[in-house]
């Protein structure tokens, strides 16, 4: 009996191993493993370098949950200041996004490699777009506050500049992805640059531009709620004030308002995406 099993095993094993040889392992597999191992090593190193004070972590966690307890119930009494501030944040986001969309619509067509009038010009615009996109909105806000003073204006400018950077990039990308035959056909028919854009490019990329705009508006509403932390107006300022004065109950109310704002925008844009 046992001999038989041994025989069977002998028969089976070569089969199994040859099977394994037949199925080529996916190429990415080893690479993935190396990445994961490097990641773990880097993680340990980073954690060591951060030098986190673990007793503080423990004490702070207890304090955090006590504070969360103290936050309840939320204090709605200051709604007549909080709600206008929330609306101001919304307005800052809308205005900033609209300005960015309008300017990027012009620049993106000049920056797209396939329809630009001048390659060097296109590269320059893209370089500036990268610069605008990489510097965070709140740093832009700080710069504009120094230049034009406190209030919603630096917030609008900061959001407009940062969004402009991203929108130029993605708009130009969607224009570059479009089918080149259409442009050629229009060119052959003797259309000039503006006619090509109006008749060939805009109808093709319109839905892509629309969905990018909606996504950007969603991001900008999130960002406009935090701009107040540096003094650029809106609901962020109310939250900073409440936290600084240890008015945790108001802080919870403001946080709830921010949550509702961002959450409802996410819901609405999900609906819109389904429709588009």
């Amino acid at each position: 009996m046992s001999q038989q099993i041994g025989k069977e095993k002998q028969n089976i094993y070569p089969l199994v191993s040859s099977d394994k040889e037949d199925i080529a392992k996916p190429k990415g597999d080893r690479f993935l493993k190396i990445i994961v191992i490097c990641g773990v090593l880097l993680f340990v190193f980073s954690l060591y370098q951060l030098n986190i004070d673990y007793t503080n972590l423990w004490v702070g966690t207890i304090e955090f949950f006590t504070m969360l307890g103290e936050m309840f119930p939320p204090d709605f009494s200051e709604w007549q200041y909080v709600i206008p501030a929330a609306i101001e944040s919304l307005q800052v986001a809308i205005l900033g996004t609209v300005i960015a969309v309008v300017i990027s619509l012009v620049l993106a067509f000049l920056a797209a490699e396939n329809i630009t009038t001048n390659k060097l010009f296109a590269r320059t615009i893209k370089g500036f777009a990268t610069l605008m996109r990489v510097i965070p909105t709140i740093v832009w806000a700080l710069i504009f506050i120094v230049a034009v003073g406190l209030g919603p204006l630096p917030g609008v400018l900061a959001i407009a500049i940062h969004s402009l950077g991203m929108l130029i990039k993605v708009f130009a990308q969607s224009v570059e992805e479009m089918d080149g035959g259409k442009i050629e056909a229009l060119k052959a028919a003797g259309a000039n640059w503006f006619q090509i854009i109006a008749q060939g490019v805009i109808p093709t990329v319109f839905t892509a531009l629309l969905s990018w705009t909606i996504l950007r508006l969603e991001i900008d509403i999130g960002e406009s709620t935090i701009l107040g932390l540096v003094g650029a107006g809106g609901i962020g300022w109310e939250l900073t004030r409440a936290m600084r004065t240890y008015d945790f109950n108001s802080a919870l109310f403001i946080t709830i308002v921010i949550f509702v704002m961002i959450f409802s925008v996410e819901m609405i844009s999900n609906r819109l995406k389904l429709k588009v």
Partner: protein
Amino acid sequence: MGEIKDIRKTKRLQTIVILVFVCGLTVWSAIGTDFSFYEVFSGIGLISNFVFLDLLPPDVSASNSLLDAILETLYMGFVGMVIGAGIALVLSFLAASTTTPHPVIQVVVRAFTSIIRNIPGLIWALILVASYGIGVTVGTLSLILGSIGFLTRVFADTLEEIDTGKIEALHATGSNYFQILAQGVFPQFLPGFVAWSLYNLELNIRASTIIGMVGGGGIGFAIQKGIKLFQYKEVSMAIILVLILILSTEFLTSKIRERII
């Protein structure tokens, strides 16, 4: 013929209504924020003055102390991503309809992560500063929270898109829940897991440059300090370092993603 004209008419009407609505919103926002082109154009002089006289040229001699800050930012972003991804991995298996042990758990986890996700990281940092004090702990913790919120959602979406035939086959052979997860689900999920985590690393590094502004340590703290002390040339150096860090992580992660997918 008449029908087509009607459709065209309603379409045109729709476009006009939407355009008017958007214009109305814009005007309403412009009035609400006291926006005036006059102020913007008169501000251009001030802005360019500030940029060319105060910000530039960057103070290269400050780069030594700033280097520590930018590395701190990198470490925070990475640690936040790894711990966040670990926790999100567990949560996403509970939150995906294909792998959840019970629908009630799915709803609870989704609601919990939605609350975390829809409160911006900077606001988490502001709340956490009150209990942990200024320092990297706050920055790391708020990045962990942000990562959990984002990654649980995208991981769960990835899990819901996997091929269920494999799971059924494993079910038929009598595998238990954990065997199915390990053999059927995880191998399909791994590339998505790594790619999304890398994208999250990008987001974290962006976020951790600003979280320092409310007391989370790193380069954000250095930028905030520089502005408060009017050391604008140091600020511009810090911004350049941020630029280098963000662009190089973007480059690296996109290269890794390309090879995986």
